């Protein structure tokens, strides 16, 4: 007796996108009441002018719901069409149940497969890679991928090396079947030898024992070095793997970690002037797993990105981990 095997779609594509940010704006002037810094320094070193932090009633869950609902509507689908939900987050502060299971139920994706992944700032691209495989294998038909963070809850607001950088948002995409190719092969990897360059200050059990919170700590220059060297190279590899010539690329949406990292990548990649580069870090700071879909939605809303454009994405962060692919904008 031969077992039945699932049959998938020939290709997968991003069908819809959505993004959500908290209402409270924290500008650099307010930031400088928490840390010894200046608007000029923050802008010059990162490009950030303001960021959003959650306030009363806003959570990683509420942001996820908002972004996911928009993405499903943008895709022209209803929640019952969704059969898998993947959320990348480090801000859902319980081990179980997963945020994805809760979000799937609240949106109305009845009986959808649901799970969270931990890939920090690379999470959205990790999730897209998984969704693409699920659709092509036949394990799922329409997958919602969400990157959602409330890093303001995991950052020491008085830590000069992180407070001004990290912020809150969610972004989502629906991945579904396609008759034509619309997502290039993922290029991804990890380097756990550098696990200590972005890490939590203590484990949850140490936090309980010591009565102190566990927060994000970062060796900024080491991250910067990795991002401008290894990750810039990896970004070239994504473009190569996609088979596109540089002048066939319309958009470059790197993880919005720091404008200076984006600048360095551009010097390395030497992309044609015609490529539109995402710079939404200016308004939203570094929102980790949410930054790529948030930036892409912003480009679509401003008219700088249009349906059918080719978009190179690269996520990178704590792990260290990275992932990226080229997609066609829905």
């Amino acid at each position, binding site marked *: 007796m031969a077992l039945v095997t699932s049959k998938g779609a020939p290709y997968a594509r991003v069908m819809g996108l959505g993004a959500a940010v908290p209402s409270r704006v924290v500008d650099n002037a307010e930031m400088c009441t928490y840390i010894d810094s200046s608007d000029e320094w923050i802008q*010059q*070193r990162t490009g950030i002018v303001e960021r959003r932090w959650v306030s009363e009633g806003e959570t990683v869950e509420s942001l996820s719901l908002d972004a996911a609902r928009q993405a499903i509507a943008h895709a022209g689908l209803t929640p019952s069409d969704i059969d898998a939900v993947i959320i990348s987050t480090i801000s859902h502060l319980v081990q179980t149940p997963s945020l994805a299971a809760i979000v799937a139920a609240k949106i109305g994706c009845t009986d959808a497969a649901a799970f969270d992944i931990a890939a920090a700032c690379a999470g959205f691209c990790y999730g897209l890679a998984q969704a693409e495989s699920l659709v092509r294998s036949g394990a799922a038909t329409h997958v919602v991928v969400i990157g959602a963070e409330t890093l303001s809850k995991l950052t020491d607001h008085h830590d000069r090396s992180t407070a001004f950088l990290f912020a809150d948002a969610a972004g989502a995409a629906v991945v579904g079947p396609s008759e034509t190719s619309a997502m290039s092969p993922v290029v991804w990897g990890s380097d756990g030898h550098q696990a200590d360059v972005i890490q939590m200050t203590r484990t949850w059990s140490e936090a309980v024992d010591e009565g102190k919170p566990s927060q994000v700590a970062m060796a900024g*220059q*080491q991250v*910067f*070095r990795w991002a*401008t*060297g290894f990750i810039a190279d990896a970004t070239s590899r994504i473009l190569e793997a996609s088979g596109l010539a540089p002048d066939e690329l319309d958009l470059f949406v790197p993880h919005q970690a720091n404008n*200076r990292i984006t600048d*360095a990548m551009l*010097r390395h990649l030497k992309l044609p002037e015609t490529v539109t580069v995402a710079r939404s870090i200016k308004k939203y700071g570094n929102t980790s797993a949410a930054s790529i879909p948030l930036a892409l939605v912003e480009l679509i809303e401003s008219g700088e990105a249009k349906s059918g454009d080719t978009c190179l994405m690269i996520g990178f962060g704590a792990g260290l981990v990275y992932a990226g692919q080229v997609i066609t904008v829905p």
Partner: protein
Amino acid sequence: MATTEEIRTQLADLVNDVAGVPVEDVQLDKSFVDDLDVDSLAMVEIIVGCEDAFGVTIPDEESKNLKTVGDAVAYIEQHS
């Protein structure tokens, strides 16, 4: 083997590309931070650029000692 002047010229192009410093200002006696206004992040990028361009490895603990253009050129001469 590249001469000191060849290395300096190539380094000057790199510093110009990364930090916008005029190439003629990138002289051996100049301090990156104090004279050329290269900030800490641009310095990291210059180090990464030197590794690529000259095929040398510059660990973090070494990069801290490269205060002047001359320090960097000497390091590259000794290690390439």
